[in-house]
Structure formats: C-alpha cells, structure tokens
C-alpha cells in the first residue's frame, strides 16, 4: 500500500496538506485501494515515521513539506527498495521523486488577474510566516501585478513569527482591513488557516481575495477572484497511482504540466471578464513557452520588483 505523511500543520491545514489528502482520497475512491496516513506531531518523529512506514512495506511513501528534506536524505538510502516522494523540495537520492511546484508561475498569473480586477491600482499580499517559500508566492504575484500595471502598488504583510502565524484568522482579517484602508481591493492570501480570515474579511468588505493551494473559490462565491491552486493532490494521486514503479528524479509541477493553475469555476465566473481571460491566457502561454520567466525568489533571495 502507499502511504502519506502530513507535515506538522496537520491534515486539515486548509493548505497543501489538505490538498495532498484530497489527492489520496481521490485515488482511494477511484481504485478502491487503501493507504496509510500519518500526521507528524514533533520534529523528532519525522525519521521515526519514515522508517516505520518503510519497514511495514508501504510503497511509495509520499510526504508533504520541505521540512522532510534532510531526514529523507538520511533515510532513503537505508530502504533502497522503497520509493519516496517528497513535495516542495528536492532530495537527490536514487529512490526519491522530488515534486517541486512553480509557485512563481501560478502567482504571476494571480498577479495579472489581480491587477486587472483592481480598480484602485493597489493590491495586497498576506503571507503566513516570513519564510522563503512564501516569498516565492509573493514575488511571483508582484511580478504579475507590475507586468500588467506598472503603476500598481502591492502591499505586503506577514502574519507572525510563531507557528500561530498559520492559525490566526483574526489577525488575517485585521491585516486585510489594514490593506483595504490603504486602498487595496484585491488581496492574495498565502497563509494557511490565517488565509481563511483574510478571505472572510475581504468578502465582508466587498473586496476581492485570492485563495491559495486548493480551490477556495467556493468559500465566498462571487467574492473570491480566483485561487492559485497547487496541484499537490495531483502529485499525490499520481504517485499513488504509479505505485512502486514511481518515477524518481525531480518532477516539475508548473503551468505547462498543469501543476499550478488558477482556479476557474462557476463561483468566480461572474468576476472574470473576457479581457481578463485573454490576459491570463496570454501570460500563461508566454510562461509556458519561456517568453516570460517569472523570477524565482529562492535563487538569489531577492525579488526584481519592489
């Protein structure tokens, strides 16, 4: 059986752990198979969980989160016959598939859309903890905004520095209000549970928000502009489906491979004009064929805009 390990945020983090869970559930529903799942509760358990799962014969073992990187590097060689998949970081081992997402690409598109939807010319970004991963979202988004409207202003907030930063919808809402009062009328939230508060506050204030990771358009139909979806569910689904035959090496989940995308559905249909669709499609094509290359914050810890 395959197995799935969730990171400390937990299975229902309204973010990528939850997306991973949905992928596994989809696989289960389609194949009728069963899988093992584990939730971490402390740092020291990572290795324990990996080894124990490997020893029970689970194959492949999928784990969400860059925090597993170091541990997997240590554990993978001990179980050469087990395949591992790790999401969000690269681990260079012969039996590991590294799934990395092109957050800057998806966020770029979100930025394009935000710039077009904004009437005020000011848009916002609210991140959870100030960590490099979230800067990837932020920077891609800012680039998309600036490319569409060079005069636009992007307001940026991070929620906090403790793990509570991911679970503080109240603070998220307050940040959204602060951004609104500075003129923002579209706000992109990449902040886990805190983002729920951002989306809620935006809906309350009648401005637009952009969800992240999974499709959050349905949370406030007609008020969430779109969601920058990371198809973690697909990554998990594919890995489970491949089973022990899992392809190792790095798997790029980008626009081209449908690994990241903007969620378009009935909930946000009224918000999306033809002009927007055209602009997003154009940007998407340009990114896919390399005409536009959104900068990846991680390569040099800087962002070309702002």
């Amino acid at each position, binding site marked *: 059986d395959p197995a799935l390990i969730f990171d400390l945020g937990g299975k229902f983090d309204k973010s990528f752990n939850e997306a991973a869970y949905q992928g596994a559930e989809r696989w289960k529903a389609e194949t009728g198979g069963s899988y093992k799942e584990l939730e971490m509760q402390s740092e020291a358990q990572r290795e324990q969980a990996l080894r124990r799962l490997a020893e029970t014969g689970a194959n492949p073992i999928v784990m969400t989160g860059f925090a597993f990187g170091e541990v997997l590097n240590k554990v993978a060689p001990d179980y050469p016959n087990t395949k591992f998949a790790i999401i969000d970081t690269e681990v260079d081992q012969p039996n590991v598939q590294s799934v990395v997402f092109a957050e800057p690409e998806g966020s770029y598109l979100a930025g394009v859309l935000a710039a077009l939807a904004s009437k005020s010319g000011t848009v916002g970004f609210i991140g959870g903890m100030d960590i490099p991963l979230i800067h990837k979202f932020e920077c891609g988004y800012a680039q998309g905004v600036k490319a569409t409207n060079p005069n636009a202003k992007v307001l940026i907030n991070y929620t906090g520095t403790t793990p*509570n930063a991911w679970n503080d*919808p109240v603070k998220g809402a307050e940040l959204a209000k602060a951004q609104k009062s500075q003129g923002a009328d579209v706000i992109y939230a990449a902040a886990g549970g805190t983002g729920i508060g951002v989306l809620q506050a935006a809906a309350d204030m009648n401005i637009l928000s952009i969800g992240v990771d999974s499709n959050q358009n349905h949370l406030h139909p007609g008020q969430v502009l779109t969601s920058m979806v990371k198809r973690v569910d697909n990554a998990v689904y594919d890995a489970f489906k491949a089973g022990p035959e899992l392809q190792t090496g790095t798997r790029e989940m980008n626009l081209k491979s449908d690994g990241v995308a903007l969620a378009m559905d009935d909930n946000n249909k009224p918000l999306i004009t033809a002009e927007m669709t055209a602009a997003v499609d154009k940007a998407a094509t340009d990114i896919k064929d390399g005409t536009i290359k959104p900068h990846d914050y991680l390569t040099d810890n800087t962002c070309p805009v702002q």
Partner: protein
Amino acid sequence: MDYATLLQIVDSAVRLMTPLLFACLAGLYSERAGIFDIGLEGKMLMAAFVSASVAFATGSAWLGLIAGVAGALGMSLIHGLASITLRGNQLISGVAINFLASGLTVLLGQKLFGLGGRTPQLSGNARFLEITLPFTETIGKIPVLGPIYVEVISGQTVLVYIAFLCVPLTWWVLYRTRFGLRLRAVGENPASVDTAGISVARIRYAAVLICGVLCGLAGAYLATALAAGFVKEMTAGRGYIALAALIFAKWRPWYALFATFLFGLMEAISNRFPDLNLGPVTVPSMFMNALPYILTIIILAGFVGRAIPPRAGGEPYVKER
C-alpha cells in the same frame, strides 16, 4: 501619517483590543479575588469553539454567544473546584486548562465536523455584524470629531460596545457595590471576610464564574465577530497578552482599558507598517511583528513601576492547617 490613517489605525486597535479587554477584565475579577488565572487562553479558546459550533448549528450568533459563555464557564468551574474547593495549585490548574482546551476543541471539532478542528464558515446571523450607529451622515460632517464617530465609534460589532461598557461597569461593581468590596477584600485578606461571617469560597466562586463569562465573551468575539468560525489555536496567545496587560494595568479596570488599547494599538501599527523604512535600513517584518512585545518591555521598564498583585493572590485560603 495623515488623520484618516490615524483613525484607521485606532479603529483597528479597537477591534484588536476587544478580546484582550474582555480577557483582561476576566482576569481582573479572578485575580482581585485572589485566584490567579493563567488559563484565560484556554477559556477563550473553548468559548470560541463552542460559540462557533452552536452559532453554526443554530444560525444564531446570540445562541452561539450564550453557549460560548457556558463553555468558558465549564472551564472556570474546573479552575474553581481545583483552586477553591480543593485548594490546589492555581498555576497548575491554569496550565492544565490551557492544554485541555487546546486538545478538546480540536477533538470535538473533528468529531462533529470532520474538518480537522475547524468549524464550518459562519455567515449571516450566525455572526455578529458591524453596527452602523445613527446619524453617521450628519455627525460625520463635523470636522475632526466627526470622522472619529464614523470611523472608530460607529461600525463596530455589538460586543465591542459591551466590552467598553464592561470597564465602567467593572469599576462600579468593584468600588461601589457590596459584592465588589467583598471581592477585593477576599483577594487581599480572606480572613477578614471570613471573620465577618461571609463565605470566602462563595465570593471566590462568583469571581471565577464572572471571569468565565467574560472569557466567554472574548472567545465568542474572536470566533463569531472578528472571524467567521473557529480555527484550532485561534486565540494565538491572546490570553497571555491579556495577562500581561492585567499586570501592566496593576489590576485596575480603567488602567486595563488603556493597557489593552496600547497592545491593540501596537499591533495595529505593526500591521499597518509591515516594513518600516527608516532611511538606510528597512526593519524586517519579523521585527515589526515583534514590535508590540518589544515596546511593552520598554514601557514596563521605563514608565511602569512595581505592580503589586493582590496580597492573597495565588494562595488557597486555608484556616486549619
């Protein structure tokens, strides 16, 4: 910074301080009666969860509020039983309550809603919505004061007004009523109350229950007014901040208002200026986030002298050893 921005910041500060104010006053009643309470966080969390759940189930924020208060009262009763009847250690009891709420809310939430401890989103009447006070149109035209009315005073949820009313009410109860006199006495010298023929335990229980009610309001405000539903650990340390504010306020109601406002204000400022640009250096977001805490320490060290807690605080009342 222009006037409008200032008002927006104050407006934000008012929202952010409200749960702190409720919790701070809650702690004030309890500690003034001699029962230390580091379990404010847990009571708020429990109230937030219960109020969100019931508000979701019934569609009524008010029913949610009542249930949330009941939830916090349940926690208060445990604290009362431990620290009054059984003369246990009040700090341990508080720590236990924080753990208990943190675990129980998620367990129950998962059992009830299967969303990993979240409750479903609340909408409509299941939330407390902002109230626009009358005459904003006319009063708003008055220069300087008008915008204060419109921006800050009007447009808050009803719980904010309740919180602010609780301050003079608490002052009045504490200093103008028989109950308040006895409550303060019991926190300073319980033997004085006992020898006057009044039950120390009864007054302490009353204080602890009032503390529960106020924590309930704080939690309900978080989950059904500021946010639209419960998220695990959503109190995010506010109970501890309220405790700090209480000490800061030297256990007095009006000071509590100012102390919590200060905390709210500092958080609002750090929200508003996430990357403070000081010419050559830009203060990183991490430090802007920590600003309220840093400023608190500076203020405490610089301006606030020794805070003397209620003299009988933290000790169970034992007359026969």
